[in-house]
């Protein structure tokens, strides 16, 4: 079947099997930053924003995304969170990084000036096995401050 979505701002039709997860469909469409890791929604490596909300694309049947706006890091341009992760080196292997960035963007959209505790709470379901947590917290807080200064 064919599923109409808006992917990173562009309307497109995704070809999908009727029982296929959004993750596989997006990877086929070139969004390789969306990655399968745990397969049960526990780690966040496959996070995408669906109409602005973070979801585990490994668990979401593609059909359920019909008509939605999907955001992956491939669509980011001059993004303050992304730049902050880069500047502070808030990553090691990088496998979890796109999901971290998207979840952090969602947090800052809801709460532009989070405390460290709020960052930890919101990102808690995104696992970084390399254990970059303190640095990632720093990067999200740094991004929030940078946005604030800009405003």
């Amino acid at each position, binding site marked *: 079947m064919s599923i109409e979505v808006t992917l990173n701002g562009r309307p497109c039709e995704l070809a999908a099997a009727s029982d296929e997860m959004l993750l596989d469909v997006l990877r086929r469409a070139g969004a390789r930053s969306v990655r399968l*890791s745990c397969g049960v929604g526990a780690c966040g490596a496959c996070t995408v924003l669906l109409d602005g909300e973070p979801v585990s694309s490994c668990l979401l049947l593609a059909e359920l995304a019909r008509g939605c706006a999907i955001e992956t890091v491939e669509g980011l341009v001059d993004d303050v969170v992304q730049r902050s992760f880069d500047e502070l080196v808030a*990553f090691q292997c*990088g*496998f979890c990084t796109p999901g971290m*960035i998207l979840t952090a963007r969602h947090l800052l959209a809801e709460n532009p000036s989070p405390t460290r505790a709020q960052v930890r709470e919101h990102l808690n379901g995104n696992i970084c096995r390399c*254990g*970059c947590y303190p640095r990632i917290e720093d990067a999200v807080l740094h991004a929030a401050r940078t946005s604030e200064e800009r405003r």
Partner: protein
Amino acid sequence: MNERVTGAIRYSQDVERPNMLHAKIVRSLAAHAQITRIELPGGIPEGCVLITAADVADCRPYGCLVPDTPVLAETARYVGDPIAAVAAPDPRLAERLARAVAVEWSDLPAATDLEAALAADAPVVHDVCEVASRRGAWSGMRPIDGTNVSHRSRLIHGRGEAGFDEADVVVEGEWTTASAQHAPMEPHACLAEWAGGRLTVWTGTQTPFNLRRELATAFGLAEADVRVIAPPMGGSFGAKTFTRIEAIAAALARAAQRPVKLVLARDELFLTLNRHPTRSRVRLGATRDGRFVARRVWSWWDTGAYADTGPNVAAKGAWAAVGPYRFDHVEIDADCVYTNRPSNGAFRGYAATQAAWASEQCVDMLAERLAIDPLELRLQNVLRDGDRFATGELMHDFHVAECLEAVAREIEWDRSRAGVGLCALMKGMQTPSRAGARIELADGRLTVHAATAEIGQGPTTVLPKLAAEALGADPRLVTLAEIDTDVTPFDTRTTSSRSTHMMAGALGEAAEALRRALADELEAAPGDLRFTADGGIEIVGTPASRRPLASLPALSGEGEHVIEGGLDPDSGQGIASAHWHQGAGAVRVAVDRETGVVEIVGLAAAVYAGRVVDASRAALQNDGSVVMGIGSALYESIEFSDGQVTNANMGDYQVPAFRDVPAFAATLHELPGAEIHGLGETALPLVPAATGNALRALGLAQSHLPIHPERVLDALDRSGA
């Protein structure tokens, strides 16, 4: 921006080849069984393949130390043992076919844990003497005939156990550790392709050259006919070492005559390689005033169904059990034991985690008995430069005492010792060891060819930095090439935190060689050459000699760094490590006395780093090691029922998340002029042992790792509090 941040990085799971098939492994449901029939009801669809042990009958068993691992098993030795594999044009079809495969078997008696495998009448997983005598087996194997002990590692120093007669006080305890999963975010992935009798494998691996040799063994090829290309990994921590899934992909590709890609699902990682569960009995003797006299350790390392690097883990576990202390007498037996479980092998902290959990708690047991401050007791006995370790080697550049003092300050040991525990540790690097590197100049760019695998620890940044430093060039001119065993110089492997240390030596030599080649080209003395900021080279003092690098012909310089050593398997004497990874940890806990929940409320780790090459990435490594240590201390345990893993998913197997990690102080100690020391896995083993000692300080001593609140409550009951 870094390609990890943009998402543009490509891992081995992203590798694609024209006409490739996708594979799925068919696994044994029995812990020990003779497979009698495997068949796909309805037949194999066109364009798909199914292979079983019969299809790889020509292949030889492989293994990094013991050739005991078949490509596909006819006798299944654990629940999850690969017994067949399918490949299909579509990954979902491959999965469906694998699930549809019908298997018949007859059960054999199984030994599904250490206790069962060590029993007097235990079922035998392998004929240990037979596998140890096979061609290609490590000559240091010391199997015990008729048992499941594939290797007994011994260490004798002084008068050994007899030396306890000089001790005034003796303490003894027994400790156990559970199996743990590396759980890298990226599951194992590889792609195999045959062309013209040569096998090419793209795979995320820490050990490209070991893999090349093992694949050559398995398929009866010359090593030169195997090519391993190693893209960056999304984490590994020891999981992607030696041959994991590559031989199966290669066998499928051979049968299908098409490239075959194999990516594991999360549950399969728990069936592929885990950390050794252990049991250790530790006895420690000292004089009344706290001088360590003798240590005796027996330890058992459950290596699972195939030895993998288990004998080496046990050997490391033997001397790691001594700890960073002076002893007059030491005797250690460390047995590597086959069981009908998934294989256990290399895991960040390699044997030190299990050894320190037992030995460092035994130190606190002694401190308690003698009523000596555990910090003072450690400082009194810790090795210093010029001391002789139990292996006979002389200590140099040794700073565990300073690390202990640093963490004691950080945790405010003098203010309050309630619920605070310490751990001191030394760990070694792979010894002997060899690293090769080449720096190439072409089209104005400098490229490093070195087989240090990118796991996330940052060689992509650090190796070019080292090369640039050695050349005196701008690091932005230098990049690290992808590993390709056809092109990349030999390197032992990316393990044991050896790579930056070893590659600094190899790149130093390579840089000198390149400078000599440049000097020949420019007809100058190598010492007179200078790289300019704008991508040129000139003879010092002669600005007119400046030439853009791009105008030079292709040139290269190669270097190698070799260190000798190793231990005698019967005495444990020799050189265990060319340099020591050293550290100390301190943990403060708070215990909910009604639920047994342990909270780490303070944590300090100090690691000696010698010279740090990239401060930001070194700190990430050290921090990450602490975070993983928290998981090992409190959560991580693979659970089994009749040999079957019961929590093979990341919901039921818990790894630390943001909120599980308290604010902590992990420091790297540098010394001007010191050599580079490995630092990637020193902090991990500190955390469980220091947490154990913190609970001991509260009268809630724990024998099993990880620490579950239920057992803490049991300890509370025993303490009568």
